[in-house]
Each structure stands twice: as C-alpha cells, then as structure tokens.
C-alpha cells in the first residue's frame, strides 16, 4: 500500500469537512446519532463534541501506528482504538453531568459504530502523517458538530419554542411536537439537504458561467 498521499495544504484538510465534504450534509454519514439525539441543541452539541473527541483521538492513534499495524488486523485494531476513546468520553460525560449522560442514552456507546469515524481512520488517517490526520479529524468533527447543531437548533426552536433551554416565544407558544420526535429529524435533515444542494448547484452554475468557453473541469 502506498503509505503517504500527495501533500495538500493544511487548511484545505480542515476546511473540506466543514462544507465541501461535510459528513452529514454531503457524505450523509453518521445518520443514527444525527437524527436520534438532535431533538435539542444541547444534546446535539454534546453528541457532536463527543464524536469530535473520538474522531480526533482515533485519527491521531491510527496515524501514529500506521507503520506498526499489519494490514490484516487493521480494522480490528481501529475498532479497539475507537471503542477505547468512546469509553473515555462516556466516563468523561458521566463525570461532567449525569443528566446529559442520561439524555444521550445509548447513543454515546453507539459512537463506536459511527461509520464517519471508522471511515476517516481507514480512508485517511492510516495513509497520512499525524498532523494531516489531526487537521482532517478536526475539520470533519467540526463539520459534524455544526451539522448536528443545525438540526438540533431548528428542532428545538420549532418543537419546544426554545434554544439551549432558553424560551424564545411568549408563554402561549404551542410547540410543533413532531419536530422533537424522530420524524422531525427526517423533516429537518431533508430541509437542510435541500438547502445545501441548492447552494451547491447555484455555485456550480455560477462557476460554469464564469469559465471561458472550451475550458474543462467542474467547480463545486
């Protein structure tokens, strides 16, 4: 296996996860926690940060050990590393707030099977330097946090009339209950995907219009 990829500018490794390759809105990865625990902004932020921590930790270790781990046992090793960081974050959340731990329920443990994390370990961290893998994890993790926060904020505002528990409307406000139920996760995700795809299409059209006649290559 070729060990090192062609170096790319560090900022691009970070920025790509925020928008161009956003794990939720573009790659549509990690849907289980994205839909299940984004019923409030607080839960969404906590789950996003927990995933970011696991992603950064596992990418760092996998990248550091890429010359040490034989190809045949790489997936088992990655799962071991990811499960360790999930256990660490589980203990940390219990130490910070038991209420938050209760709110996130089984989905903390399920970070282990979040395909975003195993995907970055296998596709990126195992083939790149530690620094590049760190930037990739930070970018993808931050993109995941922003995506969950976007879902959680919309669902909490429409479903409960509050944001981070702070009421936004008058006392008589009747929340749209479906938004804090699982169906609301799908509705909100559909809305965000529609917006993202519309923005990407519009950008592609504008770039195509700016290119000189006869030039090749698309800009997204």
């Amino acid at each position: 296996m070729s060990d090192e990829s062609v170096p790319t500018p560090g900022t691009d490794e970070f920025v790509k996860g925020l928008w161009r390759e956003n794990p939720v809105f573009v790659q549509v990865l990690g849907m289980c926690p994205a839909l299940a625990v984004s019923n409030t902004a607080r839960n969404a932020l906590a789950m996003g940060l927990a995933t970011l921590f696991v992603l950064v930790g596992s990418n760092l270790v996998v990248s550091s050990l890429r010359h040490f781990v034989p190809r045949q046992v790489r997936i088992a090793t990655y799962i071991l590393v990811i499960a360790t960081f999930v256990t660490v974050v589980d203990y940390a959340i219990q130490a910070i707030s038991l209420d938050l731990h209760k709110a996130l329920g089984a989905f903390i443990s399920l970070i282990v099977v979040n395909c975003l994390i195993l995907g970055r370990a296998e596709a990126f961290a195992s083939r790149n330097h530690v620094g590049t893998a760190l930037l990739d994890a930070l970018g993808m993790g931050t993109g995941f946090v922003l995506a969950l926060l976007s879902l959680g904020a919309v669902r909490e505002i429409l479903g409960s009339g509050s944001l981070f528990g702070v009421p936004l409307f008058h006392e008589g406000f009747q929340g749209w209950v479906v938004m804090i139920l699982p169906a609301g996760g799908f509705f909100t995700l559909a809305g965000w995907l529609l917006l993202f795809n519309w923005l990407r299409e519009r950008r592609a059209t504008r770039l195509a219009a700016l290119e000189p006649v006869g030039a090749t290559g698309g800009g997204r």
Partner: protein
Amino acid sequence: MSAAPPGEQPRVWPMYRAMVGVGLMCGLLIVGVFQWTGPRIARNRAEALERAIFQVLPAARSSTTFRLVDGERFEPRGEGDAADSLVHAGYDAEGELVGLALEGRGMGYQDVIHVLFGYAFADETVVGIRVLESRETPGLGDRIETDPGFLANFDALDVRLDESGSALAHAIEPVKPGEKTEAWQVDGITGATISSVAIANILDQSAAFWIPRIRARLDDFRGAQP
C-alpha cells in the same frame, strides 16, 4: 501499513504484536480514565440520588439510608456497607417518618432501567417516581421520564397490602393508554409501550418485595432521623 507480498503467507508475529500492543495501550488508558473520573462520577450519582429522594418524597426535609439485614430487619447504613438492599427513609421538619424512597431495577427496551419511587405511609400509595438510570431511545422511550400524563400515574398509585400483610392487595398492572380505571393501574405511553410497561413491572416487583418487609418493621425507621 505493512503488507505481505502476493502469494506469501502473512507473518503472524507482527499481527500478535500489534493487537496485544494496542490492546495493552487501550486498557491502560481506560483504567487511567476510570481511576481519574471514578470519584467524581460516584459523587454525581450520590448527589442525584439525594435530589431524587426529596423529589419522590416532597414532604420530607431530611433522609436516612437503611440496609436490609438478614432479609427481615433494617439498620441505618454504615460507612463501607454494601450499596445493595438499601431503602431511604424520609422525615418531615418535626422528625416524623413520612415515607420511604425505594429503588427498583428491570429490563427496559434497550438496557436496565433504574428507578426510585416514593412510598407514603399515610395512604399506602406511591407518590412519585424518578428514573435514575436508563438508556431508552431519546424522543421515544425516554418519555417515561418526561411525559406528564404518564408521570400522573404515580401521584397516588395504590400499593396497599392484603389482609395477611405479606403481599400487595392488587398487583400494579400496566394498561393501554387511556384505559386506566383502577388506582393500581398504570396508563402506558403510545410510542413507548415497552418502556412504560417495564416501569409498571419494575414498580410491581420492587413494591411486592419491599412494602411487606417495611410494614412489618416500621419501628426500625422511627427515631433514626439525622
């Protein structure tokens, strides 16, 4: 990452070395974090339990924890005593016993649910419930903690004993949402059927175990307020 050339058997030693090495490193990290966060988690749990006791026994102003000894009598829990078979007695401002907070555990939809419920002596009812630990599905199963209609089941749930004093007069019975007609029945939650039935069953088992023993030894709790 190293790989064996095509047609050549992969060497086993590097695989063992990698798996054992990474496993050892992961184990040490988990043990280290557990040691570091353990006392803080235990303190958080104790504080949450303390808050829950006063929530399920609103009339209580102080509490003392008792331990069931030899399956029949209760003694105040001492330092270093095991953390099982415990009940929490609540006392009002005058030091009178107002009720007990009892724990119950049972299987929910995803994992074990751990609840605390208040038992009031005066009218022999459950007067409140708090879920201490659960991993029920957010938005669905976790409504056992937040649904006002479901929680109203436990404002005055009948747990009287029968004439012999050794069993509940009526087992706590889960029913479909809106079909509750008796004071010992628990209305379920649409969309969280398994979790709500689990709560009723946990309460039934825990009440059937604790309440006959408590009623038989009420004097153990009197005069033991802190």
